[in-house]
Structure formats: C-alpha cells, structure tokens
C-alpha cells in the first residue's frame, strides 16, 4: 500500500474541518501569522514541482498524440475516446472490476468475520494473530509477486496439492491460463488486503462498549444476530474506510501485474496502470498513456466521494 492509498479516506476528515474551526473560534485560536507561509513554503515547493506540475502536464499531454521523441500533434479528446472504443483498453478497466471483488469485497467480508470472532470470543494470542495476518501488507509488492509466482508455478504447491488429492486434471500454470490468470492475480490481492481490513475492524470493535454485547445476550441474541445488530452498525466508518482503501488498491494494481504476468496471457490480466506504463514507455503512445492516467485519477477521486457518501447515508 502507499500513502496515496492510505489516506484517501481523509477527504472525509477534511470535510469536517470547517465545523472544527468554528468550534475553536471561541477558544484561543491558532495565531494569525504570516510566518506560516515560510513554514509551508519548502514542502509546497517540492510538492508543486514534482506532483502538481506533472499532474497538470499529464492533462495537457493527454490532449496530444506524441511518441515521446518527435514533435507531438494535437489530438483533442481522441485519446479519451479511445478508452471507450479500444477493446484492449476497455477490457483493462473491466479487469479492474474483477479485481475489486478480490481486493476489496472478499477481504472486507473476511476481515469482518475475523473481527467479529475476536470481539465475541475474547481470543487469547490476539497480538500474534494481528501481527501475522497484517504481515503481507508490509512486504514489498514485488516480493509478494515473486513469491506467488512460485506458488502458482506448474510444479508449485497449488498444483502439488491438486495432485495429492487426485485432481491432476485441474493442474495448470495458473498465471499463464487465459481463464484463471486474472482470478489468480486477484487471490494475491485478497492475501494482501485481508490483514488491512482485519486491523481496521479490530480497532473499530475495540471501541464498542461491552455492555452492548451483554445487552444483546440478555436478549438471547446468537452469534449472527449479535453481529448484525451490534458489531456491523458500530463498524460503519471502518467499513467505509476499508472499502475506499482496497478499491483504490485494486484500481492501482501495477507492480503485481508487471512482475507476475506482464498483462498476459494475451491481455487477460492487463489493467489500466499497466497500460499507462506500456503505452508511455514501451510502444510510444504517451498521449494515450496520459489520458488513461488522468481517467484513473478521476475514477479514484470519484470512488472516494461515492463511498464517503454511501457511508454518510447508511
């Protein structure tokens, strides 16, 4: 995960800012100071030069057809139009939808289950489970990819297991299979994201007053009803955050695809981020790459807003 993924959920935090400022107006306020600009200037300078400016440049580049070497030519919105019409590009965005299931929905469901178990049963060795289940989050994605390539290899553990139980017919090179390559990449996402969801929900359940559980039990609620009436509603915020982070992680999958499949076989595992790289640096379609990048950015901003909205309404 990256900083970009991490605090996308912070838009919500920022949205609360005006309220907080109003509340503070009576109390000793932050002092009005012009020196503030001097404190901000160095950070802002680097930020503007290496993030804001390139972002603006990407917008401009996306309106040109440019091979990266010779003079570019004006292309209007044709690079964006291409995203809708080009089969390869369109399917790269559709693949992302499949990845969302594996990167976001399954980990959220599993994380909720695990957190509910912990909240209910007062498990011993919680620190151990948390440390271990979160571990995949901190390992470099390239290492993760190299590792899972071995696991999916024709003579790897997955196929060994299938042979062991007599399902020899199902063995295959999973990452080279047109049907199974994308879900195989997805499972890696599930492996990485589950720990993130788990610790987020764990932090959330820790804040639920025990009396709520006691009350539910007095009412004779079983594990399932207790989950539905106590745990789930209390975790609303954490679920919103977890979904935001994991959906964006799915949208931004790059390292994993680059190292495991390079988008293949064919373009079975091609994703938008990979298309950005391929077009800009391998086949000299810089304008198209920029347009995909801008589209990706817009989608990420939209996902933030939409999920935050749903969270507010729920």
């Amino acid at each position, binding site marked *: *995960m990256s*900083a970009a993924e*991490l605090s*996308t*959920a*912070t*838009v919500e935090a*920022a949205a609360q*800012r005006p309220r907080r400022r109003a509340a503070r107006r009576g109390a*000793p306020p*932050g*002092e009005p100071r012009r*020196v*503030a600009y001097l404190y*901000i200037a160095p*950070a*802002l300078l*680097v*930020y503007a030069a*290496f993030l*804001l400016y*390139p*972002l603006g*440049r*990407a917008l401009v*580049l996306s309106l040109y057809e440019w091979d*990266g070497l010779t003079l570019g030519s004006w292309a209007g919105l044709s690079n964006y139009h291409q995203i809708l019409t080009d089969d390869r590009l369109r399917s790269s965005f559709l693949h992302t939808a499949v990845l969302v299931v594996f990167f976001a929905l399954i980990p959220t469901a*599993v994380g909720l289950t*695990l957190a509910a178990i912990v909240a209910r*049963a007062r498990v011993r060795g919680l620190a*151990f*489970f948390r*440390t*271990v289940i*979160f*571990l*995949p989050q*901190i*390992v*470099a*994605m*390239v*290492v993760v990819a*190299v*590792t899972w390539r*071995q696991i999916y290899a024709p003579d790897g*553990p997955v196929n060994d297991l299938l042979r062991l139980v007599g399902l020899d017919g199902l063995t295959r090179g999973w990452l080279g299979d047109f049907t199974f390559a994308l879900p195989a990449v997805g499972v890696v996402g599930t492996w990485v994201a589950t720990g*993130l969801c788990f610790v*987020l929900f764990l932090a959330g359940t820790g804040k639920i007053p025990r009396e709520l559980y006691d009350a539910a039990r007095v009412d004779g609620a079983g*594990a399932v009803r207790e989950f539905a009436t106590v745990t789930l509603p209390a975790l609303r*915020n954490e679920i919103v955050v977890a979904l935001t982070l994991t959906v964006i992680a799915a949208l931004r999958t*790059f*390292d994993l695809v*680059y190292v495991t499949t390079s988008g293949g076989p064919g373009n079975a595992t091609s994703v938008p981020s990979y298309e*950005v*790289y391929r077009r800009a*640096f391998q086949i000299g379609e*810089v304008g198209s790459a920029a347009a*995909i990048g*801008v589209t990706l950015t817009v989608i990420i901003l939209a996902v933030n807003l939409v999920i935050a909205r749903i969270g507010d309404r729920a």
Partner: protein
Amino acid sequence: MTSARERTLSYVILLAFAAFALYPLVTVVDLAFSADVSGQATGGFANLGDAWVQGRFGTYLRSSLIVSVVTVLLATFLSIMSGYAFGTMRFAGQTLLFYTILLGIMVPTEVIVVPLYFDLRSLGLTDTYAALILPQVAQSVAFGTFWMRAYFLSSSRDVVEAARLDGAGHWQTLWRILAPIGRPAIVTLTLLTFMWTWNEFLIPLVMVTSENLRTAPLGLAFFQGQYTSGVALLAAGAVIVALPVVILYLFLQRHFIQGIVEGSTRG
C-alpha cells in the same frame, strides 16, 4: 460466555487465516535456503551470499538505503514544518492550500510519472538520485503534512502558551517543545514513509536505467528476468529485499498498525 464448541471454531478460523497469511512467506524463505537441482545454489546461508554477490543485491540495497533515508529525512522535516503551520497558525488561503496538499494523497503515481519522466529527461535528470528521491518526497509531504497537522491540532495550547511566556519564539516552540513531545507521531510517520519508499517500484522502474541506481525491488524484478531456472537464488533475493522492513515491523509493529489505522480513519 460463548460455548466451548464456538470457542474452538473461533480458533480454527483464526488459525486458518494466520496460516494462509504465513504460508507463502514460509514457502519463499524455505526456497531461499534450499539447494538447487541446477547446481546454481548450494543451499543454506550461502544462497544469501550468492544472491548478494551474483544478484548484486548488495548494490541494490545500498541504493535503496540512500533513496529511502534521504526521502524520509527530507519529507519528515518538511512535513513537520508545514504541519506545524496548518495545525497551530491561521493565515489567508489556509483551507485552499490544505486541500491542495490533500489532493496529493489521492493522485496515483501512474499519472505523474509519465510527464515527470519526459520532463526530467529533457533536463538531463533521469538516471539520478534526484529523480528517485524528489517525486517521492513530494508524495510523502502530502501525507506527512496531513499527519503532522493532526498531531499539532491535538497538541496542548497550554504548553504552547507557557513556552511563549518563557520567551520562546515559534521556531523554538516547534523544535524544543512540540517536536519532542510529538516523538511517537514523528516516529510513526518516519516508519511509514520509509516502508513506502523502500517498497516503491514504479518510480525507480521508470526513472533509472543504470544498474548502480537500481533499488532493491527493481533489482529483484530484473533478477527474476535473468534467473528463470534458479529459483533458490531468486527466493534468496526476495528475502533480502523484504527483510529490512519486516525486521522493523516485528520490532515496532505497534507504530505500523496504529499508523495505518489512524492515518486512514483519523478525522
């Protein structure tokens, strides 16, 4: 109280997922120490040494260390200062500036790396440490400013007042009083930034071609391309690349987990 059967089931489920999380990592460590049929790897710790030399992971680690340490130092220093201004001062355009910086947390690397590469190339800056470090500092100060601002907002006004009565200016108040009190928040920020920078792949992939500048994850990806048969050395390389962050995590996991949880839910 829950029934004994339910308790058992709870542990079984938790253990199953712990095993799922650990299994791939155990597999790769096991491979890293195994001998190779091809005879490229002799097994044991010798594999790590071979990967270090043959795979040039020593060089990659050095490059990663330079990039990560410089990025962390620069980004943390700049973030503390800007977070201090946003958290304790009032000035015109504050909200707009803060939102502008917050935007940087959401902008994906993919979109900025394309123009950045071509612009830095025309300035002759690709294939330098600057090209690896400065874009990552820019990304890190976005999160860092947000993170430090939250700390300074929560810091005690009384402490600041007392410092001022003692004649401390804003600079001393920051570095002598608030920064030392905020050490836990700063340590967490440092660790998260270090992890993100160490693990970053796309920026080094695009920005450098020189082997001496390759960071560890990039080196590993290239190594995989070369040694398709030598799985043991590849696994050894993977272990070497992952180890620094894993060690930090095992010793300081509270910072990692709390940092991620608070960084994403705070507000």
